[in-house]
């Protein structure tokens, strides 16, 4: 499925693509790529690579917590998002686009305001806490705000559409006839699901996982609005301290580490997709 290329091969037009790219590329290089080098440079100020081990040990609690939260939120989003995507793709019928629109609709309300709504919902004395208290799922003296659960739950909420949409796209491409063929070959429904549906949706699942996990690791809004200082994530450290000049080398090291991990993830994703023959 390579992009068309006929028009570009004429000898006197070789420069056209570069001319088209130039303005956007220059902008991206100056204001996106170079700043990344800038924090790399800042991160080794006054201490070299030793800064990294210092930052890692000083912030180990926060770093581990961030990945724990993001992982749990991603798993939760997958457990809820896959059935939703499956339902829309396979059972949606005429209402497919309408249901998709419903999934995207929450995004029309500003991120901050959506998250503040969770603060309202999870407030001590609010309905959710009330129900949990009466069901004895939560001790009477405890609330939900300022707990890990609230932050993870809200992270999961804010990134759920990022999980649902890629899975939906994968499932939608699924040719029903393949399932027909599977059943004609005497495969049970579970087998057909595992071997056909699940496999075909793997690219979507991977994409959704990345698109959920990555932004979640850098998030600080959910932790700030719904958590206490016991739920501080990497993003919060950066947000609380980016004003202090002398802190920026440490924050740069933190950012750079986060970025490196994400790049590793993206490359793994690329490798998996590049070599496998998944539709």
């Amino acid at each position: 499925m390579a992009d068309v290329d006929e028009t570009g091969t004429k000898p006197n037009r070789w420069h056209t693509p570069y001319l088209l790219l130039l303005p956007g590329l220059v902008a991206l290089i100056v204001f996106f790529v170079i700043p990344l080098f800038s924090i790399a440079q800042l991160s080794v100020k006054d201490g070299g690579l030793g800064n990294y081990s210092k930052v890692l040990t000083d912030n180990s609690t926060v770093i581990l917590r961030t990945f724990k939260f993001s992982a749990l939120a991603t798993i939760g989003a997958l457990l809820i998002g896959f059935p939703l995507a499956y339902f829309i793709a396979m059972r949606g019928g005429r209402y497919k686009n309408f249901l998709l629109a419903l999934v995207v609709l929450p995004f029309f309300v500003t991120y901050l305001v959506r998250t503040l709504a969770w603060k309202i919902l999870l407030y001590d004395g609010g309905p959710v806490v009330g129900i949990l208290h009466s069901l004895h799922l939560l001790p009477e003296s405890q609330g939900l705000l300022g707990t890990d659960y609230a932050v993870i739950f809200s992270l999961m909420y804010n990134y759920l559409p990022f999980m649902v949409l890629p899975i939906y796209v994968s499932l939608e491409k699924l040719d029903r006839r393949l399932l027909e063929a599977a059943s004609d070959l005497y495969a049970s429904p579970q087998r057909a699901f595992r071997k056909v549906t699940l496999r075909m949706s793997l690219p979507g699942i991977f994409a959704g996982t990345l698109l959920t996990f990555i932004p979640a690791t850098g998030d600080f809004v959910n932790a700030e609005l719904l958590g206490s200082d016991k739920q501080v994530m990497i993003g919060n450290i950066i947000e609380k301290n980016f004003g202090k000049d002398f802190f920026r080398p440490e924050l740069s090291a933190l950012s750079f580490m986060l970025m490196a991990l994400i790049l590793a993830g993206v490359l793994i994703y690329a490798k998996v997709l590049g070599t496998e023959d998944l539709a």
Partner: protein
Amino acid sequence: MAAPTIDPAPEILARSKDQPAILGHGGPPLWLRKLGNWTLTVVALGALAYLFVPIVVVVIYSFNKPLGKYNYVWHQFSLEAWTDPFKYPELKDALLLSLKVACVVTIISVVLGTLIALAMVKYRFKAKGAMGTILILPLTMPEVVMGFSLLTWFVALSWSRGFFTIIIAQVMFCISYVATTVRARIRGFNWSLEEAALDLGAKPWRVFRRVTFPLILPGILAAALLTFALSLDDFIITYLNSGLQQTFPVEIWTLKKSRVPTQINVFATTILVISVVMALLGVWIGFRREKKVRQVNP
């Protein structure tokens, strides 16, 4: 990667459209399968409810008159915020700034991003892979890293943070969204139409205006809408690169320490309603165009 192109008999195709995707040969009994289907429906609708509950809360609480300065607990029904939405000038100014920024960012990103998309789709050139990498990075980078790195760069350049730094920060990730969206939409186009026009003696600029541009316009419009929404909503990157002027989300953040007024919910609800109306309009226009096309090409 393309599905196999064997065409089964029409009856089979028709049948597979109506029946559930999993046809049974062996496997669990009917009642279990029905239970499974029912569970799926419940989970899916539950997920939709999960997505919706906060939105409903936002709208409902726009009619709240809180006891104190924070609109967190329901106190009493009131239309006060709706009749006096501009009570807090800082919120109004922030919203106006957000709209201004969104317009500028959309224009710049759409132009730059579309050019990139055209280059990526129509031509094969050596740096294509590297370009693809650069394009994908803003989409996969956590906003806090992007925002913070840009901030350190602005500090190094000793640029004061203000209107222009906000624009730059937002354009950086919007270019990728535009390029990816437009690219997806215009892939598979029949570019030989351009060739044909050129062969018929049209100048390149005319070809672009009359042939290329109308073809890619739907993609551009979709990307423009997406960018506008993204810009309006952006918080993290904008926050880290703002100066005196604050966009709507940034204003909410800095204001929340002293107050969370109901007017915020009013603004959010209004934006929601306007966006939904615009989306519906877009769909409706799309339908009508399709009808027209089908009338001409049955």
